[in-house]
């Protein structure tokens, strides 16, 4: 833990010390597993919603002889796989955060700390969708990196702050909840100054902070 201690910035933080130290560092396997489960549930829910939408459309077209559409196992797997790849690709290439990662304060970043490029995000999404167990190499890796991370040179870090850019190592989280309110943290996230070069124009209307600012 010497490296972590050395990387501690002298920045005011309202986070608990354990969480404060972890900001900007690669996440461990437990959190990522939970996030994967949440994301899988999100994908399953999406597939189910798609099925319902399909059924509604069929009902509207043939209301008299409506029957629930029958789907095969293969169809479900394909639909779920496609949905998952698309879902992960879009989220990782935009904010780097899926629903599960947003809930648990994780973020996928590239080498430069920015969200992944679309192709890299797509490749990583495919790898994670079809070879999810490769994630557990992170438990063995001395750098908490899965096989996908090693191959695609990506990282999954703790980043409790909102926004599209990764927190620096040890940088405290910042209550910059999205105006849309889809941040699971909401306005209750601990307040602390973010990195000084943080681009605030991403969030033109930040929610009021707890310290009244």
């Amino acid at each position, binding site marked *: 833990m010497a490296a972590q201690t050395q990387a501690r910035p002298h920045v005011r933080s309202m986070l608990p010390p354990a969480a404060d130290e972890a900001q900007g560092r690669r996440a461990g396997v437990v959190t990522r597993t939970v996030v994967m489960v949440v994301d899988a549930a999100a994908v399953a829910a999406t597939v189910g919603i798609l099925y319902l939408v399909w059924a509604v459309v069929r009902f509207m077209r043939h209301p008299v002889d409506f029957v629930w559409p029958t789907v095969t196992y293969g169809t479900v797997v394909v639909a779920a796989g496609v949905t998952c790849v698309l879902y992960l690709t879009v989220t990782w290439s935009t904010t780097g955060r899926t629903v599960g990662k947003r*809930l648990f304060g994780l973020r996928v*970043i590239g080498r*430069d700390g920015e969200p992944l490029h679309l192709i890299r995000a797509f490749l990583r999404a495919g790898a994670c969708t079809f070879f999810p167990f490769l994630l557990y190499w992170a438990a063995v890796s001395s750098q908490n990196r899965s096989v996908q991370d090693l191959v695609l040179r990506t990282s999954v870090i703790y980043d409790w702050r909102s926004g599209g850019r990764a927190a620096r190592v040890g940088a405290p989280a910042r209550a910059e909840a999205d105006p849309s309110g889809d941040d699971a943290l909401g306005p209750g996230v601990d307040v602390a100054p973010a990195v000084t070069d943080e681009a605030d124009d991403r969030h033109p209307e930040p929610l009021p902070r707890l310290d009244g600012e």
Partner: protein
Amino acid sequence: MEQIPIGRPSHDNVVPLRTPQPEVVTEIPVGAETPTETTEAPPPEVARPEPAAAEPEDDEEELSWEEVVARDAAAEAPGEPDDGPAPNAELTLMLEQIAQVGLGLTVGVVDAVAGSLRRTAGQEPGPDDPRNEPIEVLTGAALGAAATLAELMAKAIGAATEAVEPVASVAANPPLLGGLSRGAGSALRFLDGTWKAKEAGARSSAESFMRDLVPSVTTNALDQIDLNALIRERVDINAIAAEIDLDALIARVDINAIVDRLDMDRLVERLPIEAVLARVDLNAVADQLDVNRVAERLDLEAVVARIDLASLAQEVIDEIDLPEIIRDSSGAMASETVREVRILGIEADRFVAKVVDRILHRKRARDTSVPGLGEND
């Protein structure tokens, strides 16, 4: 003040004093005296012929009065050589001087008296007033006559003295003088009685006269003097000021009366309050303030009573978005839960990593930092 021309009609008769003839002055046996000094009151001894300086005084003491008279007569016998003037000429000169000095003084006094009389009569004639001309001419003529008469009298007295002196010296023997003195004594006592009867009235008249004369003379004299220059030249004002007891002087001043007469508003308007305040160290003043004592003296209840708490509370409630606060509170509770779950996840990650590292006998701690996100990046 108007200056009264003192003795203007008769200046030529009085001032300057007539100086004695040079040959006469050189003949005055009183060697130390100058002619100008003769203008002062001459001592009686000057009028008497001095005895010869060469004679010793003890010889004179041994002579009887008959011998002195005989010696004087022999000394003044005609035909004898005499270097100095005759004693009678000297006496005449003295008398003339006395007459002139008296005349000058008389003229000054008369002029002041005339001015005083004019003022008391309500007349303030100018210096060129034609009404004064006959009076001035008459005055001048009278004074001229008086001067001439004085000269003639002086000469007559000198001549009479010269003629009478031998007779007087003979008549001055004691038997003759005894009878004369008795007669003269009775006459003097009569005259003295007459004077005493009139003394009170004369003194009263003189005093009333002097009461008017003295201010007039003083005023005229002061008009001729530049008192300011005189004081500057003669008076050490600093020495006088050093002896003034200013404390006692100030103690006699009624400061309150002065302050009552002050227009304080005008005074305050002229005060540079801003400049004064700029020089005041308000921080130092504030440091010396005992805020607790000030607070103790505050009647907070009265202050609160003056506040319209109901309207104030209404304004506060209007400004506060209570529903938003409630929503924020619930969100805060949710976020608190999420935070706890996140922290649990982080701790679980560390625990698993530690277990795996122990299984793998890995002694180095994991490097979970991202190179691109270094704090010094």
